[in-house]
């Protein structure tokens, strides 16, 4: 493959060589992505949402491999072989221009890949893979057992999260605990500026917009703790607006929620009645 062989025989078949190297590179990189790197791609497997997201990420990463390899192999090859000969006489390359055949082929291939990606994404959305993302006040993609989902309201205010459980007397608590293997319907809203409720390991992310309700669904499948962070810049302590949530068994959840009800019973009666959107006064005081 040295340059001497290139000039000795007929014009070396660069195209074939690049195709071979690309095929080998893809044959190596795709399995590596699927079996070696793939399992480590976040998010983990704590809820149905994260499992869907994990498969989507692995599929996208594997699809990206051939494209990545094609560009890398082609550029590396051309940098290695299509060089200016030594000496300072500047030699021009062949004056060839575009052949329509290759352009149409490239256009068709890229269009097919894009249409494939878009349909794959849409099918995923139809199979409720995008439920972790905020779907606004009237969600269209709704999981099967959404009727008896646990309603949890997430209230973002400047600079921490509080959670209300309407089916348990509308108790408000700064801690978030969810029963395992039960569908949860989050209603995310804010009382002052735009925040973004991000339960990282649960695979839920929904903007908390004042004056608007934002719905997200998740079904936790494993016990454990998950980080809750704010993913939309909301002012001074945006970076400190974190808390940790826990997924626990049904019995633990029952005891926990009862403990919260007693702990905050004195203030629950002063809270405004549970509603999907709050317009607290004063707006402009003074």
């Amino acid at each position, binding site marked *: 493959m040295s340059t001497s062989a290139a000039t000795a025989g007929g014009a070396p078949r660069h195209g074939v060589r690049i195709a071979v190297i690309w095929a080998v590179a893809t044959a190596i990189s795709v399995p590596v992505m699927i079996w070696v790197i793939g399992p480590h791609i976040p998010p983990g497997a704590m809820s149905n949402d994260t499992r869907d997201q994990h498969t989507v990420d692995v599929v996208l990463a594997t699809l990206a491999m051939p494209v990545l390899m094609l560009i890398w192999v082609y550029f590396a090859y*051309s940098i290695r072989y299509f060089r200016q000969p030594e000496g300072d006489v500047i030699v021009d390359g062949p004056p060839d221009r575009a052949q329509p055949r290759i352009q149409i082929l490239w256009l068709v291939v890229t*269009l097919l890949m894009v249409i494939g990606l*878009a349909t794959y994404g849409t099918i995923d*959305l139809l199979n409720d893979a995008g439920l972790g993302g905020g779907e606004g006040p009237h969600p269209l993609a709704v999981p099967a057992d959404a009727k008896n989902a646990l309603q949890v309201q997430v209230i973002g205010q400047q600079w921490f999260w509080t959670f209300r459980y309407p089916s348990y007397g509308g108790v408000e608590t700064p801690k978030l605990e969810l029963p395992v293997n039960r569908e949860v319907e989050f209603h995310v809203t804010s009382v002052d500026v735009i925040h973004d409720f991000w339960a990282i390991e649960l695979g839920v992310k929904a903007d908390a917009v004042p004056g608007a309700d934002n719905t997200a669904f998740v079904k936790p499948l494993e016990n454990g703790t998950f980080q809750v962070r704010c993913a939309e810049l909301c002012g001074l302590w945006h970076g400190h607006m974190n808390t940790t949530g826990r997924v626990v068994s049904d019995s633990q959840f029952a005891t926990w929620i009862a403990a919260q009800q007693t702990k905050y019973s004195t203030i629950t009666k002063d809270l405004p009645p549970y509603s999907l959107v709050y317009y607290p006064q004063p707006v402009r005081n003074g």
Partner: protein
Amino acid sequence: MESASVRQPQVVKSSTRIPSAWGQLLGYNVIWATVLAIVGYIVLHKIGDTIGAHSVAETGSGGSDQDDIAILMGMVGAILGWIGGLGFLNYPVSRILGRPATLREREEHGAWRYFRLCTDHKVVAIQYLVAVLFFFFIAGLNAMFIRTELTSDNATLFGAGNYLTLVGLHGTMMLMMMSAGILGPLGNYLVPLMIGSRRMAFPRIESLTMWLTVLAGFILLAATLLGGFPTGWTGYAPLADEARAGIDAYLVSFALIGVALALVGANMLVTVITLRAPGMHWNRLPIFVWGMVTTSILAVLAAPVLLAALIMVMMDRSIDTTFFVAAQGGSPLLWEELFWFFGHPEVYILALPGFAIVLEILPVFARKPLWGYRVAVAGMFGVALMSFMVWQHHLFMSGINSNLRPFYMFTTELISVPTGMVFLNAMGTLWKAKIRFTVPMLFALAFFFNFLFGGLSGVFLSDVPSDVLTHGSYFVMAHFHYTIMGGLVFALMGGIYYWLPKMTGFKLNEKLGKIHFWAMFIFFNLTFFPLFAAGMLGMPRRVSNYNASLHTLNVFVSSAAFCLGASMLVFLGNLVWSMVFKRERAGDNPWHSKGLEWQLPSPVPVYNFERIPVINTDPYQYGSPDAPPVADFGPRVVAGQAGAT
């Protein structure tokens, strides 16, 4: 050959008296502009105080908040003072009094013309380049401070509020300066030379956009004097309404950049449409000029939407309208919609000039014609057109109707097809090429390596289920740094190394250039590739304290970022060394390019062409020795002898 219609140029010997240094000082120049800007600010601030006090008494709302009227009016005063001091108001006033339209201000000579209104597009381009690089280095300095803060996982170095201002200034200044960062310097300098014209369409407006950009940069720096702003460059709504006075500086400077962007775009478009030399048909236009045309279309149409949105926030803050106050009939989502309707064309205003420069540099150093000229132009127009149809992918999680998701997922992914055409062209041009690895070529090749990661991570962000994890996280930040810094800034550096010998006549040092390239390329990737992982592991954007598990990763990224900053200093050193100390003559065509601008002496004389040339072919006739020269310049006009009439 339509030589008859080409008017013979007349050689005019004009002896102009250069006023003495004092004379120059007293004229309209940047020193007077600064003085008048400050005076304008103080005077109108006073008037604003009286109006503010009056409206406070009337509406009875709080005392401390009403200084917004005073600050905004003060800034309007500063703008008027700045423009008046530079002499921009003289022409409109003379037009109001009925004097006829003239094209050129009195042409001056000597270094003073760089410090005042000058209608020579080459002077404005160099002023633009110096201004953009000046603010680029300040914003880069911000990035270094951000990375120092992020070496510790809890906010210790700077106060939390100051950190947010730092992030906001870094983002806003980089985007403000980079959106006109190539249209201004390289566009203004090269487009007239490449299309065979002696001027831009509206020379005064061109100079106005440059001085507005400089003023916008300093007003944004003044945000720290007013207490900083917490909203980052996106300026989301209720937070912008309730922020301290620093947000007024953000609003006014971004509005100025919006106006400047629309004007520089309009000026570019009119120049290319009307001032092409005879023979310069649309299919002979260099690809760089096509890049400038498509970027200008986006600039002209998207910047006004930004201006409208910023005016709404200014009204919300000063006269208490409720555009974005949910409790009183407004909606914060309105800002997100308007901002991102401008926002996404804005990021393509940043990407397209990168494509333009790279596709112009590749043929010269691959010694091959640009492979698919029509496909490249189609790709650029495809990107420009599609960029108006994708903006809601920033709102996937904001609660928009989930029926919109598949549409915006499809259009966002579809935009990778025209971008793919740019890659196809690069690969076609490199096929059996004779590559010379000069510094501009290294930057062009690195552009494709970086933009590939930017594009592929874009696919992750466009797919809704995957976007649930990555929205608003460091994954997004790594994505847009790969496309903007990996794409645009690498292309800008390549463009500077390639065209500076033509603009100044002096060559940039090759060895220093190579050191700068390799340091910048390696440390850029070492800085931003790990941030993809940080994003997926749950590190939101714009936070100064993160999960302890990400600490070692952030320390590694910070150290790589400091080396990246050092590589930028190498570039600065190279600039100062080659332009100020060594000053090694570069000759008229150091890269042996066939472009029209390289057939002129460097630095280019004031009148660009002695005779408007007749263009024969497109500037990519590499590899065909019998091809006609790119243009016929006609017999040289012997200085001092009147041209044949």
